[in-house]
């Protein structure tokens, strides 16, 4: 019975992949953008590291790996759930999701997973190739870190998704949440270590960042990948990441239950 229920979502996932492959050209802009960010920041870091001294234990090679993996991760962390909810609420199409024998957030999650699956081929691989050819091949620090990176990346995906979903659910009450979604996007960009690693910030600022969920989206998996963090320190960080995941999950469950009762179908 449980498995049968899952197969419904599996087909929604599959349909989303088919859908994503029908618009071929819209996704290539992101490759260009990520490549530009990757290449310009490679120039930037090479210039900064000209003296050759590692900063906070990270040398230039580690830093270059960092930016390539960060660009690749950004593809896995693309969410559409916030826009999907906003659109459905604004246009009233949420009715179409609510009348199906499925959990609407389950639909949104597998739709995002479907889009990402399509993007692995359309975006992630091209970015990997561009980075490998023009910057360097981003190899992981040690094979032991592969499972740790995978676990941390998985948690990072869900933290990111739940934050997006929470922002999206604002539209159940505020209807127009465009600005809020923009704020969220930039918060994650700047405070997660996706562009500037937090070890370049002063201690007090870093302490604040470590208390927020954003660094557990990019910085932690990246640290694991380049071997910046290991042992007890790493275990501690992953614990905090897990705690954030649980906190966001509880917040999501609470808000989702209240929000769906508030559904107001516009028009008609």
């Amino acid at each position, binding site marked *: 019975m449980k498995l049968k229920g899952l*197969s419904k979502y599996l*087909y*929604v996932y599959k349909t989303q992949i088919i*859908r994503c492959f029908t618009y071929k050209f819209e996704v290539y802009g992101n490759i260009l953008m990520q490549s530009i960010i990757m290449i310009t920041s490679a120039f930037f870091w090479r210039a900064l590291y000209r003296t050759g001294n590692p900063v906070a234990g990270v040398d230039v090679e580690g830093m270059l790996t960092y930016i390539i993996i960060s660009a690749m991760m950004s593809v896995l962390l693309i969410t559409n759930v916030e826009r999907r909810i906003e659109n459905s609420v604004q246009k009233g199409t949420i*009715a*179409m999701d609510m009348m199906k024998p499925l959990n609407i957030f389950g639909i949104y999650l597998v739709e995002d997973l479907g889009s990402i699956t399509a993007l692995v081929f359309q975006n992630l691989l091209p970015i990997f190739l561009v980075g490998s050819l023009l910057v360097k091949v981003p190899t992981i620090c040690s094979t032991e870190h592969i499972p740790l990176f995978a676990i941390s990346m998985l948690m990072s995906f869900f933290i990111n998704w739940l934050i997006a979903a929470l922002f999206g659910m604002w539209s159940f009450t505020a209807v127009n949440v465009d600005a809020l979604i923009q704020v969220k996007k930039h918060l994650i960009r700047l405070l997660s270590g996706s562009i500037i690693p937090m070890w370049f910030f002063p201690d007090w600022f870093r302490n604040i960042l470590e208390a927020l969920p954003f660094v557990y989206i990019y910085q932690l998996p990246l640290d694991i990948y380049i071997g910046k963090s290991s042992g007890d320190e790493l275990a501690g960080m992953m614990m905090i990441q897990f705690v954030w995941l649980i906190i966001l999950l509880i917040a999501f469950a609470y808000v989702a239950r209240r929000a769906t009762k508030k559904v107001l179908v516009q028009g*008609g």
Partner: protein
Amino acid sequence: MNKKMIEVKNLCKDYHIVKKEEGLKGAVKGLFKSEKKTIEAVRHLDFTVDKGEIVGFIGPNGAGKSTTIKMMSGILTPSSGEILINGVDITKHRKEVVQNIGVVFGQRTQLNWDLRLGESFELLRHIYQIDRNEYEETLDVMDEILDIRKIIDKPVRQMSLGQRVKGDLVAAMLHSPDVLFLDEPTIGLDVSSKYALRKFIKEINKVKQTTVILTTHDLGDIEELCERLIIINHGKMMEDGNLVDIVDRIAPYKTLVVQYYDHENIPVHHSCEMIKTEGNMAWYRFMKADITAAALISELSEKKKILDVSIEEAGIDDIIRIAYGQ
């Protein structure tokens, strides 16, 4: 027989909307403090619908029809009251209950714009866990009336409105639900599409005993499909009953149209009311209880020579006009 399919008990729905004030001052004020206004969209509705009934749900725009349909199909949560579909509370068990419901909104689509129609059907087949053979059979039946296989490979984006609504209707019936909700299904359709749609609704109602509830502003839909009417206005129940009974009660009169040989001295009659004359024509409205049409004709013909007569029944449009309070 007479199994209760839908039970609606004391159903209410309130909306809270932010009151917008006038002008720039109001807009600025609204940024800091907003006043909430409560709108009672549906007030204390009570009714039951038996299996196999086709019920017309009518009322003016903004009467609460769509809101009620959306509550019955699990989209909106009622503020209070209870809705049982086949004995199960839809508010508490939405996912289970909607498995047994089909919904078509004439102004919206559940089909996927970017994909072929068949792809949307295939998705629904999996969502509702329909067996492939059963799916093909259902599609065959629907193909006979709606010619659906002809458009199954067409992307929904490229469809005409008529084709899209047909697609939506099939999509709603793929899982053979016991209850079908149609919210203004024929809106904007041409005559032949309307005809096909009505034929389809009648057919599934007859063959599959599907209970159908439809909202419409189209008199043709009501005349051809509905035996029973529920009329609501301002969220309240105005009428609920057999179409013929409602007509008899609200408009228990007929109109006799008489054409005389000339337009001079057109006679009146004591047991009916002459509502208008035009040249040699006269319209007499009479109560069915007061006098029969035959008696009226023979008595009038004694007064003046009649060329031709016809009788107009009170139409549904009269009923609706009266019921809507105009």
